[in-house]
């Protein structure tokens, strides 16, 4: 399949999921999309916190942190896959 189509579908589904589906599903789709575009999980995490985060004593912006974690993991996976492709 064309790389552009894969990028569009994965990022689009993660963004649509933000408005239509439960947030755990969006988390999974964001991680999937971040394998194609690594920074998308951070963006979606930030979007969640921008819209929903409520600050009170002891509250933590979990969505942004999870997004950053997912992006970092996706970067690692991408590096690993690239290294495997080069060595094989």
């Amino acid at each position, binding site marked *: 399949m064309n790389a552009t189509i894969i990028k569009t579908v994965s990022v689009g589904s993660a963004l649509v999921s933000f408005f239509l589906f439960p947030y755990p599903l969006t988390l999974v789709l964001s991680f999937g999309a971040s394998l194609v575009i690594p920074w998308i999980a951070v963006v979606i995490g930030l979007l969640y*916190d*921008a*819209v929903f985060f*409520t600050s009170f004593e002891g509250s933590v912006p979990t969505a942004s942190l999870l997004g950053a974690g997912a992006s970092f993991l996706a970067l690692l996976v991408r590096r690993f896959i690239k290294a495997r492709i080069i060595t094989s």
Partner: protein
Amino acid sequence: MKPSYYRRRSAFFSSPGRVAVAFSVVGVGALFLIRSFWPSLFFSLTSPLFSIGNAVSSSLVSEEELRLIADRILLNENTSLREEVKELKKLLGSEDVSSNAVIAGVIARPPLTPYDVVLVGVGSDDGVSPGVLVSAQGGVPIGVVETAAMHHARIALFSSAGRKTEGWTGEEKIPVTLEGEGAGAFIAEVPRDAEISEGSLIYVPGPGSRPIGKVVRIDADASSPVATLRIEPLVNIFSVTQVRIELP
């Protein structure tokens, strides 16, 4: 011979990667500033899209489920009214418990939203302001308005993970500090010898005393001076469609 110098390549970030990091840092800073000075901007912009999702999911609820929800609402209303009558009998007109309120339609609720947050379709134009109490159908308090835009408001539920709310339980009105567990549930710690049984109602202050949940389990360790109450909400926050917002 002229020595050659090689630039060391970063293990994680290529040159475009560094540009992306720089953009991300600037983006996060901008978001933080906007969120601090204009907290209602983002949910005002996204609320119309959530309304579409809400309409789609509402059309999928069966008649049987709607009847069950209606039964639960009537049951909660009955419990709430019984408590209100009891309180009024005690007060005998010494305190005004009447209130002015507005009914708001819910446009996004858990599990679509994280952090136990609810978005509703009324805002400052309808008199809603931050800090006012919000109840579900049946008069059960569920949270407070956190931010109000012109036509939308964001409600922080009492059950948000880590959020603390003061309340009481039992005939002797034993004070408890409810701690949100997420997904509508709470825990609270009370002295082990306090006379609380499973099924006891938990109340929070509102106009009169309002039941918020009931004790479903008591975890008491013989070596500990306190017992942990596991509290189930009276309202299922995953199916709440309308809320009542008390106006100041």
